């Protein structure tokens, strides 16, 4: 099973990295950029095949280790 986890900073939290990218895009002539946010993408390849139990497991992983719920939000995408 393959899983993709998208982790972004929560909206209320300043993302200097995104801002910097926005600035440098503007200075390169990409003017109509309204906002940029940068997050993490974690791709996990599992030995097991997709099952409800495995999905629960992944969720637990996200909650326990992969993300910090105070500052981050995440989305899990099960690929196959």
């Amino acid at each position, binding site marked *: 099973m393959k899983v993709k986890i998208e982790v972004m900073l929560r909206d209320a*939290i*300043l993302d*200097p*990295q995104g801002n*910097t990218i926005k600035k440098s895009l503007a200075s390169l002539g990409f003017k109509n950029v309204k906002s940029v946010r940068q997050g993490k993408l974690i791709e996990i390849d599992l030995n097991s095949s997709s099952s409800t139990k495995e999905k629960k497991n992944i969720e637990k992983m996200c909650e326990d*280790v992969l993300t*910090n719920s*105070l*500052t981050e939000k995440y989305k899990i995408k099960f690929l196959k």
Partner: protein
Amino acid sequence: MKIAIVVFPGSNCDRDISWAIKNISGKKPDYLWHKEKNFTNYDLIILPGGFSYGDYLRCGAIGSHSPIMNEIKKRSQKGTKIIGICNGFQILTESKMLPGSLLKNENLKFICKKIFLKVKNNNTFFSKKYKLNEIINIPIAHMEGRYYCSKETLKELESNGQIIFQYCNDNGSIKNNYNPNGSIMNIAGIINLKGNVLGMMPHPERCSEEILGGENGIKFFRSIFESIN
């Protein structure tokens, strides 16, 4: 007085803290490997600075799951004093032993320099030797030191006197200009509600010897020694 310093893979201020404590107290602390689960009682356990697990994923995140951390949590509940400095602070927030979180510096760069701190609460085990509002010159060295917490938490921290150190200038002015990393309210160090767990980004061990350019950290360690004995 029994002090231990936890060594995580990637810790790199473990020796520095040990050196400072040995110089000031004459006694060398023990090192505890992060896989340790059974160890004798200590009055104080220090989580040192460095890059535990390379700071991969999030600073302190993987370290906060080290086998030793369960035991440290238990001991902190029993009153053992715990200090996290720099990466140690990050481990403490990641393991929820302290509220909030430490994010990437606003300028996105590692910052190593001496800054000024104001002692906002000197009625703690860790700061009693300082005067209230004393201004101290102390080094920082981190990439992720931007303290963040929710509004509610901030209120609690304030009203409970849990904010111990704030970034300021040499006159003690706490303005955003003197905030090296973008921390909320210039917060540099906090304590838990119970008063036995402290986390701070600056490095007192790096200013506890005249020849290294200052001795402002000595009172920090003296405060603790006094609290323990």
